[in-house]
């Protein structure tokens, strides 16, 4: 067989994939630059949305330290919701946005591996989601005047970073939905995000949930991110192993599972002719 090959050695292949990953992050930075005003409006909407949640603490008749604690609990829930929302949205848009712009065929016929493509989206999503979450946190703290004197920001950031791996893995699974169903896939991604937060105690303790939901909460990475971040912001707690090990386990399982699910979805799309632009 006299095949013409790509001429890439193993090292060359690694370099090729690294450049591809950089390309995904770079393209998303270009998009943020070009859609800056849209991003700004979305940020303001998220701040306003978080404020509506945090103001609940002022409507339940609490005063002083108790009110400050409830405000902080709700704020952490709102910020994690915003962070997770961005990761899900960006990773899910791996397919949806490219389909909408019409570039999907060019991207999926390019010689870059799907793990690199998806992880590139995930890396950008974590960076972008973290910046937005930090801005939302600071804006709400300043606007309402929440006091967080003991906050351990270093531990909070480290826990968010660890939990991001799991979030990206779950996001990969939902990213396949627009591939299978161009019309409803994106919305189903939002449903998955909402369900994860409902069972994870986003604005309330997991203990108030029905028994079966508490069981589901155990396998949701958001449960440990919320619990750990609340302790770190309220009491200055460090990284707790009880939060870290479940996140490591879920992350280790969810990334390969996400890739397997996405690969199966891509194969289905190639079999049924769904890997093409809309319109």
């Amino acid at each position, binding site marked *: 067989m006299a095949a*013409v090959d790509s001429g890439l050695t193993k090292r060359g292949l690694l370099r090729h994939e690294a*450049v591809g990953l950089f390309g995904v992050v*770079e393209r998303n930075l270009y998009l943020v630059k070009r859609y800056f005003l849209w991003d700004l409006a979305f940020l303001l909407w998220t701040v306003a949305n978080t404020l509506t949640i945090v103001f609940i603490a002022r409507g339940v008749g609490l005063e002083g330290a108790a009110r400050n604690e409830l405000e902080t609990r709700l704020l952490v829930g709102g910020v994690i919701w915003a962070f997770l929302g961005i990761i899900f949205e960006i990773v899910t848009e791996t397919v949806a946005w490219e389909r909408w712009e019409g*570039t999907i065929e*060019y991207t999926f016929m*390019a010689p870059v591996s799907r793990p690199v493509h998806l992880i590139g989206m995930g890396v950008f999503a974590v960076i972008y989601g973290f910046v937005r979450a930090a801005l939302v946190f600071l804006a709400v703290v300043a606007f309402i005047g929440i006091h967080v004197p003991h906050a351990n920001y270093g531990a909070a950031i480290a826990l968010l970073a660890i939990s991001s791996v799991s979030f990206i893995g779950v996001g990969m699974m939902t990213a396949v939905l627009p591939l299978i169903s161009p019309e409803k896939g994106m919305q189903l991604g939002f449903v998955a995000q909402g369900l994860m937060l409902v069972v994870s105690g986003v604005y309330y303790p997991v203990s108030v949930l029905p028994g079966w939901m508490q069981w589901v909460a155990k396998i949701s990475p958001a449960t440990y991110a919320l619990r750990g971040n609340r302790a770190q912001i309220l009491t200055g707690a460090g990284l707790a192993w009880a939060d870290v090990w479940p996140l490591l386990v879920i992350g280790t399982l969810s990334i390969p599972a996400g890739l397997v699910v996405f690969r199966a979805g891509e194969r289905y799309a*190639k079999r049924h002719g769904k*890997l*093409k632009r809309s319109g």
Partner: protein
Amino acid sequence: MQHRSQAVVVRDLRKEFSRPRGLHGRRPPRAALKGISFEIARGECVAVLGQNGSGKSTLVRVLSTLLLADGGDAHVFGHDVFAEARAVQHLVNRVSVEASFFKKLSAAENLAYAARFYGLMPAQTRAEIPRILERVGFPAERRGEAMEHLSRGMQQKVALARALLTSPVLLLLDEPTTGLDPRSKQEVQAFIRELRLRHDSTILLCTHDMQEAEALADRIGLLDRGELLFLEPVAEVKARYGVDTLEEAFFVATGRAYDDEKTDDDRDRAVFA
């Protein structure tokens, strides 16, 4: 086994698509490719003619690794399109009827994104993008403008630049001049000729424009309703059917005029092609 001089070998390639349910329930699947076979030699330019929905785009999408066939096989420079997709992807690029870019991004940003997937670093693309844009007749000083502000002809030139940037040895052109004004069409055609002269590129041109096919290709094939009726030099096509034009050859081969009104089935084909 395939000989080195063969860029593309397709054998008994079949693809069908399921159709949405109609008023009277489930409808049978629609065959987009009905066991087509052909070969393209390295460095050759082959045009495949066909009406909308004839299966041209399905063929291009199979060779681009975007579709899995239902039967048969396809090889690009010795690599199985289905089993060795990554190897094929390194060798192939395409230009389609839709320019397909991120509309808010500039030409340079879109090209940089495409180039990264083929391993080109920023240092390389900084120099290469203006050079290639100039070669396809795109004013390099406009490379920072958002794609949505460019004319259709300009966008198509950027699409050509995107394909060229990755140095493909097999270039798939799917209706590259459809919808372009006459001047842009001539410029794109001139560029395709130049590409053949200067590069070791093999070209598969799918088009419904018979003049374009005759002007650019070494051999011309006719794909009709998923069947490849012939693939040979234009003079042989005319001699075989005893006609003077490709339109007449189409009529003799199919019993229909090339511009005939489409049937409902053909409309379905257009959706899935």
